């Protein structure tokens, strides 16, 4: 029997994230959004966000050959259109720095597998698919992270702090091969009193594209897109645990040195990541408990 060619990653992401579904439900909407983005009334209302998009497009993954080489001008226009359409579609959320890198990553992953689409028709189709994948990611997976107040990110930071404080309660599989490393890592970060908010923005709001080599980041995305947002926390624990040797060389109280390491971890292999993330599987009920505690805390702080 003939072997079926593996589906390109961008198609898989589109399907698993819900982007492909959104696309079929919204035929023609993307081009309509682009027309709207040029409308004077719209630009007068969304001007700040659209101007920030224009400033940021050349600053998105600027070291990647895709954005430096011959395709760079076309790639930047591609990215500009996706971001402008996003701003018009979700004017309630708007544009938050980080979204540009996520959109750029979608384009990068496509380009790295099939090259930059050469015909206008192919380009338009891929752009439509990637746009709705972006919408699906930001809506189904990352809703709440990119808002004005970024509450969801702050809540996740508090959850991570709780996990670092008592990993034993949060981790699902104490028998996992790398369990001990994960527990040790959590202990170190907790002992240094590292505030997760010093690392979580860079990790979550760029979906690791500012943190890992893109090939590795794409592998982490595979897991997040497939398993959902819990995998975001699990991946961050895994990445931290793979930096244990470097973290161990810091002075135990030097939270800033540790944060710097976590911003740019020493690269590791996919296999190492896969082994680590298994050990980082979280007990959903433990998270629920931690969340309840958070809600209680917030209620109390409102009462004060």
């Amino acid at each position: 029997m003939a072997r079926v060619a593996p589906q390109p990653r961008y198609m898989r992401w589109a399907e698993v994230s819900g982007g492909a579904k959104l696309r079929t439900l919204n035929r023609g909407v993307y081009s309509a959004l682009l027309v709207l983005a040029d409308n004077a009334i719209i630009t007068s209302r969304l001007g700040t966000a659209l101007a920030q998009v224009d400033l940021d497009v050349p600053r998105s993954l600027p070291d990647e050959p895709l954005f430096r080489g011959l395709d760079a001008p076309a790639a930047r226009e591609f990215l500009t259109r996706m971001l402008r359409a996003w701003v018009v579609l979700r004017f309630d959320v708007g544009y938050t720095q980080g979204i540009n890198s996520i959109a750029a990553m979608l384009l990068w992953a496509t380009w790295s597998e099939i090259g930059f689409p050469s015909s206008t028709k192919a380009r338009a189709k891929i752009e439509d698919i990637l746009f709705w994948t972006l919408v699906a990611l930001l809506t189904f997976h990352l809703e709440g992270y990119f808002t004005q107040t970024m509450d969801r990110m702050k809540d996740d930071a508090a959850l991570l702090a709780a996990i670092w404080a008592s990993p034993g309660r949060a981790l699902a599989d104490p028998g996992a091969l790398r369990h001990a490393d994960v527990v040790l890592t959590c202990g170190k970060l907790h002992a240094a009193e590292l505030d997760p908010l010093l690392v979580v923005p860079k990790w979550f709001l760029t979906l690791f594209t500012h943190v890992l080599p893109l090939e590795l980041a794409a592998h982490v995305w595979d897991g997040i897109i497939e398993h959902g947002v819990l995998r975001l926390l699990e991946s961050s624990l895994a990445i931290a645990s793979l930096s244990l040797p470097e973290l161990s060389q810091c002075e135990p109280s030097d939270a800033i040195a540790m944060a710097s390491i976590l911003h740019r971890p020493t690269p590791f292999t996919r296999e190492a990541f896969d082994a680590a993330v298994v050990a980082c599987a979280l007990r959903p009920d433990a998270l629920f408990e931690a969340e309840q505690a958070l809600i209680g805390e917030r209620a109390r702080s409102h009462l004060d």
Partner: protein
Amino acid sequence: MAAGKVFQFKLVLLGEAAVGKSSLVLRFVKGQFQEFQESTIGAAFLTQSVCLDDVTVKFEIWDTAGQERYNSLAPMYYRGAQAAIVVYDITNADTLARAKAWVKELQRQASPNIVIALAGNKCDLASKRAVDDEEAAQYAEDNGLLFLETSAKGAINVNEIFIAIAKKLPKNTVETRPAKPVVQIDEPSSSKKKGCC
């Protein structure tokens, strides 16, 4: 020159997005410039030292994100900072207004003795100037700020602004370390001995 005492200070950079905060840090720390600099998400941490006559001043630099919606994270970044560089872009008058708002916030909320410098960056783009340097200088003087126009691209006044801050910082305590960045109020801060840089 005999290496004297080492003093460590926390320095935070604040200012509107894309005014050149990270570029100033990159120039100061690595002597480099990038035409397209990735926007900073959250904050980035770097260190660099300045040698004055008989002392070494080591900066722990907190380079922050400029986009407005990241502002709610800012208090965490400037907490305990002994120095700040507030940056605007001389080709964009709105960025000076934002810088003035940062200065106000620092004067109200940050450590009382914080040394603040105002940097009018991108001064290599003189033909696109939108902010009068004398007006900015007057504002800085009225508010007790150090002031320099800088260019990360042209390496103009970048080291100078850090040196000016280093000179102005009080060096009366024994080798100091910045207050812990994490919320932790009750514990007495230990003034640890630090080796030479």
